[in-house]
């Protein structure tokens, strides 16, 4: 079948280049959101998270957090320097210096060994 028969609308579509690029940005952002959508943590996982955090606080043991933010997934290892539950933040001392982590972005907690 002729290509024209399959593409009569694609051929006649009138799109301003500025509109086209805004749409592309919108699509890229949607895809990103879909890709980095935060998983729902189940209760057991949350409890493990709590326990590991408390142990780390009490013993000064290192902790490895998996953080999912708009920039993608990353891991941070360090000891807990400060807990700021009212601000939803956690400060870690890491080999590379202090790091602030938003608790809402943490999807996994492991011991740092």
């Amino acid at each position: 079948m002729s290509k024209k028969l399959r593409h009569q609308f694609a051929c006649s579509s009138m799109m301003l280049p500025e509109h086209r690029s805004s749409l592309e940005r919108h699509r890229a952002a949607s895809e990103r959101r879909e890709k980095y959508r935060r998983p729902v943590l189940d209760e057991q996982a949350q409890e493990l998270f709590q326990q590991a955090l408390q142990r780390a606080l009490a013993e000064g043991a290192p902790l490895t957090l998996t953080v999912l933010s708009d920039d993608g997934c990353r891991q941070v290892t360090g000891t807990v320097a400060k807990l700021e539950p009212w601000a939803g933040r956690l400060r870690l001392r890491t080999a590379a210096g202090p790091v602030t982590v938003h608790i809402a972005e943490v999807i996994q907690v492991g011991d740092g060994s």
Partner: protein
Amino acid sequence: MAQVERRVIFLADMESFYASVETARNPSLRGKPVAVCGDPALRHGIVLAASREAKAFGVKTGAPAWECRRLCPWIIFVKPHMQTYIDYSLQITRIFEQFTDRVVPYSIDEQFLDLTGSAHLFGGPRQAAAAIIEKIWEELGIRCRIGMGENPLQAKMACDCFAKRSPELFFELNHDNYAAHTWPLPIGDLFGVGHRMERNFHRMGVRTIGHLAALERQALKRLWGVNGELLWLNAHGIDYSIIETGAAAPQKGVGHTATLPRDYARPEEIEVVLFEMTEEVCFRARALGKMGCVVHVYCRGADFDYPTGFSRQKRLPEPSDTAAAVYPLVRRLFRLHWDGRPIRAVGISLSELVERRPVQLSLVNDRERREALNRAADRIRERFGKTSLFRAVSLTPGAQLFHSAGRIGGHEA
């Protein structure tokens, strides 16, 4: 036998889109005759959109400003704000995406939606359409009309020929009712039939869509090739087109056309504008990471009553994205085909885009250096604007760079 699921395709169209956006932004305009109109001083003084109140006076899209004033002396002219219209269009896309993930904008004010798999979630296609229409009215204050079909063509016909005139703002065509509704319509109402084709059909005695449908498919194919066949299929409501989401649909070319602020008769002046446009088009191709194989030049004469001008294309010796390589061909086409009469509008496009390739070894020129220079210039212009770095010719009287910078579609951003 298993029943094949019928596709549910919508074409949603915004009534008097630019004028509706202006009214939504400035509610004091509501209920008044409003026309969005380009700048008359620069000859963009034609109506881009008229509100329904203005239309009631006979004001039409494309009419010159003075004529509107004659038809409706208290008409309110508003300057276009193109970026705002793009932003609204995108907001509309977002609303549509709450109903389906298959949304394909067709133009700034028309978008295709495929609700085949999702219409039942809203109680059926008709209910989904009503919900969409209501949501767009509630959230943006814009009246949306929806044509529904089993393919994009039926949806488009349902919207253009029926939904726009229906109080429900909705109309459904399908394979069963397509003929009954569309065949009595004049042939000019068929999607794909322009003025020229309409004249051809009239000469053949084909005055309605039904007349066309009654002809032999092969006869139309013999007359106009695939275009004739396509119109025959459209007359029968048959459409094989696929609507692809933007990410999947490859861009076929980059082009740029503009109406000049006055008629240009001196070749030097026209060539400056052609050069500026070549630079713009090459810049856009580079931004996409593409190179073009074919260059197309278009010039339209100044006299509306005696259409002159030309539209010609030629293949480049090798794909390119630099003005230095493309412009000589543009100039050659212009010098070869221009009849010397004043020009009102010009356009250039690069098509048959291919992925940008690593530089081929070329013996005759220093392409690598030129590309590095282009890259550096592009970065400067991206960061500081199009007028931050330009060729000296853009300071000559006919040049358009400073006029077109910061504009969208030739109108104020």
